[in-house]
């Protein structure tokens, strides 16, 4: 992927986690996933918190940045003529046809619900860790997952 500094813990963190953060941002619908990942690592390095496992903190930054970017995009969307295509990871990426409708349904979920779904079913995080990542309660995560799955199920059944 890239050349990094051997023996540098931050470089090792980058090596171990950077691609995950790019992909997390992408799955959350970021318009520029790598920019999100770059910004997340930059903010992490600025703070350099002493954490045994920095991955949850990085994921939290990625979620928050992506959510903020969505707000920004919504603002832009409101000012953009509807016939102008918007850049998005979903449009830019080549998605296998058999997964397209799942990803399309996922993209229609509210941001927080989408976060819970991605953290649960892509990263296989337990709900407690999802709650920590999203800065919310386990109960809210349960609710998000349950309702998110119900929405996805309904969307897929409607297409069947």
């Amino acid at each position, binding site marked *: 992927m*890239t050349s990094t500094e051997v023996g540098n813990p931050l470089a090792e963190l980058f090596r171990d986690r950077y691609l995950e953060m790019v992909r997390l941002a992408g799955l959350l619908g970021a318009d520029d996933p790598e920019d999100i990942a*770059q910004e997340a690592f930059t903010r992490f390095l*600025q703070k350099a918190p002493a954490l045994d496992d920095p991955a949850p903190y990085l994921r939290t930054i990625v979620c928050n940045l992506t959510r903020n970017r969505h707000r920004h995009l919504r603002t832009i969307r409101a000012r953009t003529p509807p016939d102008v295509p918007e850049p998005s990871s979903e449009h830019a990426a*080549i998605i296998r046809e058999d*997964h397209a409708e799942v990803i399309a349904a996922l993209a229609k979920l*509210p941001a927080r619900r989408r976060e819970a779904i991605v953290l649960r079913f892509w990263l296989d995080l337990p709900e407690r860790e999802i709650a920590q990542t999203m800065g919310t309660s386990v109960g809210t995560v*349960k609710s998000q997952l*349950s309702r998110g799955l119900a929405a996805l199920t309904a969307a897929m059944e409607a297409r069947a």
Partner: protein
Amino acid sequence: MTDFFNNAGPSPVEGRLRAALHAHAEDFTAGRDAWQQLQARSQAARSQAARSQAAGNRASGGRAGGGRAGDSRTGGGSPARRLVRGRLAVPAAAAAAVVAVVVAATTLVHGLGGSPAAGHGSASSARPEPSVSATGPNAKTFPGQSELALVPPATSILSLTTGKDHASGTFWFGYNGPGFWGYQVSPGLQFCDAVGSADAAESSCIPVTALRSASVTADSSLGLVSVGTTSSPPAIYGGSVTDRAASVTAVLPDGRTYAGVVGTARGFPDKAWIVDSPQVTGTRLIFRDASGHQIADASTALVQVPAPKQPHSGAITVLHYAGGGSSGSVLAYLIGGHVAFWLGEPWPTAVSPDAAAGQPALAGMTDIAPTGSSQYPVLALGYAHANVARIVVHLPHGKQVTVRTFLPGWPGSGLRLWKAALGTGLFNDKAGMPLGLPTLTATAYDAAGHVVAQVRLGFSNFPI
């Protein structure tokens, strides 16, 4: 429940979802010069921060940072600064006391399993033997205290421990207490568990009717590691299983196996189980009967906890909120004679435990207002009978809040609603850590100033 398992494996939707996510993730790649770009970006950020710091010092001095990680409004903050609500953590000291109480009060043991499974890996060969104990319904201190207060046990309380990490699970069946405004209208008998280590536990309750749709359910909690280590915490799973089960084994993808323990206690319609293993994606849980036949191969399929559907009509807007990056409305419905509050996405519903037309003439619950504010303002919501004109909520230290009831507009219901902002600091301290369950009371007065009712306020789904 954190994770629910069943022997049918993931649902088709979950399988498609996982496959689609993993396939779609492959579409996102990192640039070849990402590390160099990051170094340049970090250097620029450091320079900018230094300039800002210098400017701040010249003006009036800096101020302390804060806020959520990655929040551009605040420039980031400590990951520890977040809302922790009841289910997540049990204070270490309390948990230690609990274990002692539960073990000392052992009255009934139906331990099952516990011997190392065939092919048991070397990593677990030195693990202590799993143990099981049970207490009567009067034990007051153990992991899951919050749930015990909300869903008092109707059975014995079962404690299971296993593994060198002292993974523990506490299990019981019970009915919602009178002050618990839960997800469901009349959920009936519920299975409750608190699963974790001596330092932290994760707990929840699920209606037995939901258990019947799956032969295995589970909560999970990551075990804690010593401060200063970087090893991954163990995964601790525990939950309910059909009473045919005699043993549980965690099987890692590389073939290592970790034996857990299955147990039951007086009054249990199903068995409970716990197992811990290294945290490895793809770990499966194998349940066997007394003859050694496999009866369940658990996967991470979520059980849909039944919750009332939001009605299409009849909504009463109780209040609008905005702040902390979120906004919305709290709505009230009358469902099957119960008052249900929709606290706004993504907050769950809160349904009155009693039919609103019955006694007492006043009922209410408290919860953290769904504003996203880091100050955790507390909100009280409730209903009262038609003759109640005002409500006084009594707060700690002699403070009180007085509000007037308002007519909800449900024809013929004879009910009024009320709402009160109770300020901050009731559930969480300034760092966001839970303070415990506050016991607040409210008094209802009629238009002439006579006391109509006085009640203790309840709690919605996840207090603290």
